[in-house]
């Protein structure tokens, strides 16, 4: 029988559908894994944003992955019991975001202010001489920025409380 640790490890290959370098585990959206019996696993997830259209798809991806490693009964539910916030991204998750060309979210201390978003570090050249062009981007979890040093537009992953 698999251990909870092995289940977590198995889930590390399930990637965010929008950011193929980032696993859902590193994203911090899988909040609970529970073995409920021989070949019976229960998983809780929580979305980055309430309106995220990928929730159903991600539930299915988790379920498919666990079936792939031989679990026959899988229950995946999405709850707000432990809501996601951007500090839940793992250190590896932050590196993965950068690799994908996305500025990782600034660590917050319980409050998001406009100042926190004003000079996000450019994921290409590392400069902080940047400005936010819009708090909205191609997906709900991203904002749009411009680097005045390397003259590149880039996207940032929004900090969320």
């Amino acid at each position, binding site marked *: 029988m698999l251990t909870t640790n092995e289940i977590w490890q198995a889930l590390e290959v399930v990637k965010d559908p929008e950011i193929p370098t980032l696993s859902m585990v590193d994203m911090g959206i899988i909040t609970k894994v529970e073995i409920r019996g021989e070949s019976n696993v229960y998983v809780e997830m929580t979305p980055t944003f309430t*309106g995220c259209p990928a929730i159903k798809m991600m539930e299915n991806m988790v379920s498919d992955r666990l079936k792939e490693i031989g679990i026959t009964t899988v229950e995946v539910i999405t709850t*707000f019991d432990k809501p996601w916030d951007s500090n839940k991204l793992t250190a590896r998750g932050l590196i993965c975001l950068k690799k994908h060309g996305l500025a990782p979210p600034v660590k917050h201390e319980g409050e998001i202010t406009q100042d926190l978003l004003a000079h996000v570090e450019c994921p290409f050249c590392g400069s902080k001489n940047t400005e936010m062009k819009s708090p909205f981007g191609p997906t709900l979890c991203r904002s749009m920025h411009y680097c005045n040093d390397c003259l590149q537009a880039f996207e940032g992953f929004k900090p969320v*409380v």
Partner: protein
Amino acid sequence: MNHIKELLYKMADDLLILGHRNSEWTGLGPILEEDIAFSSMAQDKIGQSQTLFQLLHDLGEQEPDTVAFTRNANQFHNAIITELPNMDYAFSIMRHFLYDTADQLRFDMLANSSYEPLAKVARKVKGELKYHVFHANTWVKKLGNATEESHARMQTALNEIWDDALGLFEESTFEEQLIKEGVFVGEVELKNRWLAIISPILSDSMLTIPHESTWKPNIGGRVGKHTEHLQPLLDEMSEVFKIDPTAEW
């Protein structure tokens, strides 16, 4: 539970209807970033409304899709401000500012609600709405202080929409019960806090709130009395759903 259902319905309907109005800017925004901003806010709001409809479903109401797509205008509880057509960009930005500031406050307050399922959702949603408010504040200040024309259009929008904005705080017949049970602090308290927040931002933007003696809150939306603008919106929104209500998406 009727008091909680009523609260959830009006919040969910506000989000659904304004979410739909926001989506009407998709492809038509004055600049690309704004097109994306209104489309993103639409997605946020419709997602948030779905979550509230799910809470209603947990309380015995019908499925979220059924509730969203099969009611007629007189069964909707949204405030009138949310159903008005987009008009020009100044109007859309002003509505966005007045509504989203109120909504963020509402969810902030509900994060401490004694009704735990709603409190959980509110703790999440309030963080998302922060970005809507940032966006609104930026544009109100920018347009209020830019050219004579942009300022004039923003002031006109504020004058036109003010009474509709006050309609957001139409009191429910369950007001007392909601307050007493600690579910929600009530519309009066919400309105006072809202006024305290929007007033300095508007004055920084050189915009003037109409004189209090002229205020006539445009109420009725919460009890299903709507303008002629709501039914066509609902017809359009539910057009695809109604072709095949049992379709799997």
